[in-house]
């Protein structure tokens, strides 16, 4: 049957006579073990078990920050877990081994079964068994001549079988007539779609794996913070962070420029349980191609923007105050919008400003921005609402060597204050600078001034809207595996439906003459695979046929 010997429908094994096995013999033995149902079952359950650790421990693929935090909070345990690839479970050696073995087992099973099924599709239904009464779904209908039919009207066995054949054919059975011990009979089979569906399902799973593997190697994704009005040129160096597939090459990036025109948010004002909650984020973007073509769109949650073969998704957002720093000589040492990273839901944000070109001393600043400043009882500030209702920027200023000339890459979002002198805020003795949009503050010792620029002409209480730029962070994805994986997944689902719900049956009808006149009709059925409705189906067929014959 080309099924594994331990499949429930296979014949039970004969008593074991163990011969001497050579190398080929052992190879065949291992192959048969690998492709047996029991092995597939064990591998499946093992796969389920092996997937569990990936949900207990942070994974690099889905939570890289969590992994870093885990290393910090468990310095002893983390390296041990890393050594067994517990932070990369789904790409690990042991997890891959399980599903690869499972797929080898699958292939080894599907190929012979496909060959057998193709043969079965072309063959005729089998001969009628000699003793139908031994089959599970067996039933008899007798039509004696005394039941109101005259002898001339009584049907002959051959006629009865002819009508049975027509009935079965009308029910989409494949039929064949045979003679069994002198009695005419018809053998019928239907439900080949069940096995077809089964094979399609298993092959489609393989298709999903291959799509994901192949397509994923050419995939990439990257993240980028874009400030309102600023352009993002699509080259590798522009990205803030980037994850390429194995076969990715820089030149694969489609050329385009993406500009964030504006970023809009709505804040919940009616429902007091969620007052102030931001929603309906809309990032209006425009993409420009080398050909001069432009396309605009809005990036929203659940609605990515398609550009250059990639899809752009909205991640986070925040404020980017525009700061101008003038140095001791009055020249502008720094002038741009700086993304401040949100620290909480009300967008209390933290930012770093580095002015290495300031003369006589390099200047570094750590700032807090509060879109709606509120004073806490401790004397510290916090933001009370994420909208621009009462913006305030506070700054601590440092001088010294910022370390940018050492040639070592440093994050733009951190300032190492160990070697710097604090001149404003903190322990310096001077109060932290507090600025509203449009205000300027002088630095001590004639070191310069710092201005918090306003984007609107007339900022003031009640009129702050739009005075500070916003930024949005975007996630750019490219994955050629998507359509392949989806197609195979849908094929798998359709195959599954057929393989579970289409009954595969063989039905036999035999007619014999009764001793006292009339005919005896025997019906039997056999199911290939699960078929709880077999007995009912055969009984219903028997009743319908008996009524047909009586007429």
């Amino acid at each position: 049957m080309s099924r594994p010997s331990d499949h429930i429908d296979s014949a039970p094994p004969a008593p074991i006579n163990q011969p001497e096995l050579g190398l080929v013999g052992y190879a065949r033995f291992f192959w048969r073990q690998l492709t047996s149902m029991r092995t597939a079952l064990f591998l499946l359950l093992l796969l389920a078990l092996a997937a569990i650790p990936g949900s207990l421990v942070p994974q690099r693929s889905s939570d890289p920050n969590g992994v870093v935090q885990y290393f910090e909070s468990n310095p002893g345990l983390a390296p041990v877990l890393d050594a067994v690839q517990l932070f990369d479970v789904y790409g690990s050696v042991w997890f891959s081994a399980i599903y690869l073995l499972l797929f080898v087992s699958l292939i080894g099973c599907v190929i012979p079964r496909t060959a057998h099924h193709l043969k079965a599709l072309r063959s005729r239904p089998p001969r009628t068994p000699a003793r139908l009464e031994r089959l599970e779904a067996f039933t008899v209908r007798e039509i004696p001549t005394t039941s109101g039919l005259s002898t001339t009207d009584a049907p002959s066995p051959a006629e009865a079988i002819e009508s049975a054949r027509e009935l079965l054919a009308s029910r989409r059975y494949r039929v064949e007539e045979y003679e069994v011990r002198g009695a005419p009979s018809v053998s019928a089979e239907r439900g080949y779609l069940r096995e077809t569906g089964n094979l399609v399902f298993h092959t489609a799973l393989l298709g999903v794996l291959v799509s994901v593997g192949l397509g994923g190697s050419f995939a990439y994704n990257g993240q980028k913070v874009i400030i309102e009005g600023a352009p993002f040129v699509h080259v590798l160096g522009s990205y803030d962070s980037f994850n390429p597939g194995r076969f990715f090459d820089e030149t694969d990036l489609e050329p385009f420029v993406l500009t964030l025109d504006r970023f809009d948010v709505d804040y919940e004002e009616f429902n007091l349980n969620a007052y102030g909650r931001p929603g309906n984020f809309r990032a209006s973007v425009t993409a420009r191609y080398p050909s001069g073509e432009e396309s605009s769109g809005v990036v929203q949650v659940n609605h990515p923007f398609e550009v250059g073969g990639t899809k752009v998704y909205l991640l986070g957002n925040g404020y980017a105050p525009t700061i101008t720093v003038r140095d001791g000589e009055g020249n502008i040492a720094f002038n741009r919008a700086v993304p401040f990273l949100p620290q909480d839901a009300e967008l209390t944000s933290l930012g770093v400003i580095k002015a290495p070109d300031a003369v006589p001393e390099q200047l570094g600043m750590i700032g807090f921005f509060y879109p709606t400043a509120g004073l806490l009882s401790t004397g510290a500030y916090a933001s009370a609402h994420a909208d621009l209702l009462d913006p305030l920027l506070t700054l601590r200023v440092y001088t010294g060597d910022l370390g940018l000339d050492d040639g070592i890459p440093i994050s733009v979002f951190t300032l190492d204050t160990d070697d710097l002198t604090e001149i404003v805020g903190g322990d310096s003795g001077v109060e932290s600078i507090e600025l509203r949009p449009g205000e300027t503050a002088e630095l001590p010792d004639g070191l310069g001034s710092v201005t918090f620029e306003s984007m609107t002409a007339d900022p003031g209480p009640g009129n702050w809207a739009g005075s500070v730029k916003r930024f949005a962070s975007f996630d750019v994805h490219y994955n050629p595996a998507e359509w392949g994986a989806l197609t195979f997944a849908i094929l798998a689902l359709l195959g599954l439906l057929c393989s579970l719900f289409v009954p595969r049956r063989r039905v036999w009808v035999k007619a014999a003459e009764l001793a006292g006149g009339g005919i005896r009709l025997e019906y039997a059925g056999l199911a290939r695979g699960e078929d709880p409705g077999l007995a009912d189906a055969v009984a219903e067929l028997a009743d319908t046929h008996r009524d047909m014959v009586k007429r």
Partner: protein
Amino acid sequence: MTEQLASAALVAIYSAMAVYAIAFVFFAVDLAKRSSAREPVAAAATGQLGAFEGSVAVAERVGTATEARTSKVSRLERVGFALTVLAWLLHLAGAVLRGLANGHVPWSNMFEFSLVMSLALTTVFLVVQFWQKLSYLGTYATGASLIVLGVGTVNFYVEVTPLHDSLQSVWIIIHVGVAILATSFFALGAGLSLLQLLQARREANPEGSRLGFLRTIPDSVALESLAYRTIVVGFVLWTFTLIAGAIWAERAWGRFWGWDTKEVWTFIIWVIYAGYIHARATRGWRGAPSAWLSIIGIAAVIFNYTIVNLFFKGLHAYSGL
């Protein structure tokens, strides 16, 4: 308006819980009565060697007694069913009112998941009666619904809040709705598997069993077949859930699969039930081993809906708590 609708929903939910509890009692008493009904066969056997008239008399008495008990038993069951239908109506009203209060489908946080999941379980249990009479599962179905609904309402209740941006998609109806329906079929199948195990143990040792009601329900092979047919429907729905979830993930997060904790557990559940179907096609694995796989499967489903939602970090953090 929202407040009133939400309060009305709570009233309906608490009423439904009360009626579930009463229905549960009726079903439980029904099972107890089935257990206490003496076997007519045993009674006749005792009279076999004795006086012929005596045994006949005994048989007659037992016959009428069981007849009387049969009609009383089915009356308890019928009351139980009627109460379950009433509880279902109240439960449905609660869910609909909550949905109206929300302005969106009522399954956006842990409380609402519990509300709709228990409703789906009762719905599937009642609808399945048109296909097969599974009245002996009444205790299990009403008890499970009551526990899920009760724990959800008491522990996870939250006020109505607007739907997060990330959930504002047609996929919340497709993906989450089908998932909830699938788990109901898995739960029903697990109940049948549990009964199958009890029945198999009783079949191995008929005298030692104290669960007499098992006499009145189908044998373990029939129960296993019923469990299989139920679980298979759940499996197809779960496969669809997985695919729909992947499609939505691509829309929302940029990738159709990222091994997020909930994605992992959905996958684990799928693999366990795939293992269940494979087990029933493997020699030596029908019967008790398959039943255990079904129960492990529902345990994984429960773990997915509780521990993963509440304690595990991930992109699926919509518990609302």
